[in-house]
């Protein structure tokens, strides 16, 4: 739960400054740009997840308590760092060298042009998250998207070695982290035709797995697995994300599928996401033709990402599941297709999206809250995750209390980005 906090302040944290300090001596502007890009992305993720965070006093030595800053200030910091990163990635003098950067850059192999696209992806998210504000500028979002990832080849996927449980993909079978997870009914219904005019999505068999009786099933959050009974165990049991029956426990017999294999990359940005951001911004701007074009490119990109055969992909795009004209396109189409493309791999961004639409079931068709919230929620859904317990609530409670971070229902306070 505190993993993003931990990564941002500690395990990525000062290491960014270490790289910058060493790279400055050697005028390695590319290393500096990459470091700033990562920190910009990290601030963005951190504040989208937690809301108010410690910005100005972060990494300040000799402090025991740390003051929090507003999300608006963190958003500005993301822009500042992104612009610095762009400047540095644009430089070709000094110690800039693709071969040298490639030694450390396991993702883009030292290709500065791809890191530039990464920075624009951060900026696109940063600008698009403000869609509820009067200051929202869809043209900016579109401009950033156009300068960002241009194909699936530009996807930012962090490669695991995938040889053991210490270096395999977190979602892969060897790591055994997702054995108790199942797709929800909400998600299954997006793929099996329930939501989209009875058309079954060709991605369904590539992303999830049918029960032995051939039917795709999901679960409702918090209600457990109703197929987990001895009576019908054989035919209706919901398989794991790896595609095997839950009764198979020998990891050696499980190969996994989709992003749930030992060697699958961990994705931070995909081309599909960029196109869906562009579609949403163009839609809000009123340019339906551009929105429709980007929307279809987004679906196509994710179909290719999941390795759907081209004929099936095109058949789906021509089916009743997809609006057949720019005028027929709705915001719900865009956000639901984005949901499919971002499933698991882009969950933090999906949560940002759902909060921007305040969990609307007219946008997220088929999505419903649980019948009751936890008592501390006071009937409200959650809008943020509390800061990390074992630093903030143990040692920094005084600072948290200044803005209500100590309240029992603090997690239901709406973050700044989603407010008008």
């Amino acid at each position: 739960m505190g993993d993003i906090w931990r990564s941002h302040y500690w395990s990525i944290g000062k290491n960014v400054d270490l790289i910058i300090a060493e790279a400055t001596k050697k005028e390695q502007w590319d290393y500096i740009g990459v470091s700033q890009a990562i920190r910009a992305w990290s601030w963005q993720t951190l504040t989208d997840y937690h809301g108010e965070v410690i910005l100005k006093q972060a990494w300040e030595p000799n402090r025991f308590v740390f003051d929090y800053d507003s999300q608006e200030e963190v958003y500005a910091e993301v822009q500042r760092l992104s612009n610095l990163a762009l400047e540095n990635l644009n430089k070709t003098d000094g110690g800039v060298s693709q071969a040298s950067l490639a030694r450390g850059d396991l993702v883009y192999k030292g290709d500065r042009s791809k890191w530039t696209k990464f920075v624009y992806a951060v900026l696109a998210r940063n600008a698009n998250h403000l869609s509820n504000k009067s200051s929202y500028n869809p043209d900016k979002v579109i401009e950033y998207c156009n300068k960002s990832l241009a194909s699936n080849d530009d996807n930012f996927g962090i490669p695991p070695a995938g040889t053991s449980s210490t270096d395999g993909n977190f979602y892969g079978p060897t790591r055994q982290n997702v054995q108790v997870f199942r797709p929800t009914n909400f998600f299954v219904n997006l793929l099996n035709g329930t939501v989209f005019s009875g058309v079954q999505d060709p991605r369904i068999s590539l992303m999830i797995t049918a029960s032995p009786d051939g039917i795709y099933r999901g679960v409702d959050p918090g209600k457990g697995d109703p197929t987990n009974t001895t009576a019908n165990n054989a035919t209706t049991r919901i398989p794991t994300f790896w595609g095997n029956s839950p009764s198979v426990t020998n990891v050696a017999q499980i190969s996994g599928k989709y992003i749930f294999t030992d060697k699958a990359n961990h994705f931070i940005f995909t081309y599909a996401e960029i196109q869906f951001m562009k579609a949403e911004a163009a839609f809000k701007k009123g340019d339906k033709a551009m929105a429709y074009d980007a929307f279809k490119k987004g679906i196509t990109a994710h179909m290719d990402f999941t390795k759907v055969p081209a004929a099936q992909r095109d058949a789906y795009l021509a089916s009743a599941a997809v609006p057949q004209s720019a005028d027929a396109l709705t915001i719900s189409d865009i956000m639901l297709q984005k949901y499919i493309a971002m499933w698991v791999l882009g969950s933090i961004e999906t949560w940002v999206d759902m909060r921007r639409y305040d969990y609307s079931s007219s946008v997220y068709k088929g999505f419903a809250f649980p019948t009751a919230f936890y008592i501390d929620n006071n009937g409200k859904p959650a809008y943020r995750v509390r800061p990390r317990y074992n630093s903030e609530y143990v040692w920094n409670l005084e600072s948290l209390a200044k803005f209500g971070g100590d309240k029992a229902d603090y997690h239901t306070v709406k973050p700044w980005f989603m407010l008008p």
Partner: protein
Amino acid sequence: MKNKLFITSLLAGMLLSFSACDDYLDINFDPSNPQVAEGFAVLPPILSQMARGNRSIPGILGRTPKTGQGIRLITPLTSTGTFQEAMLWETYGVVTTGPSEKTSI
């Protein structure tokens, strides 16, 4: 600039004149345990941490910690008032208990 050129040429001169010693000197550089935190050595773990920070989130968002952990993050439903696994919004559901099982993660 003059100084820089001077140092560069001096270094180049040193490299040329002591080139026979290069291989010998190189044994003091261990690429697995660099003495200086250079980018090529620090960047890979940072990239790995980018994945680490994000990876466990899909399951955690909307999931309540168990009693005894003392912290409530996103805390959605439970009709009984005890902490239970539950998803408020979801990317995927968490299976904890089947009708005939009472185990939970």
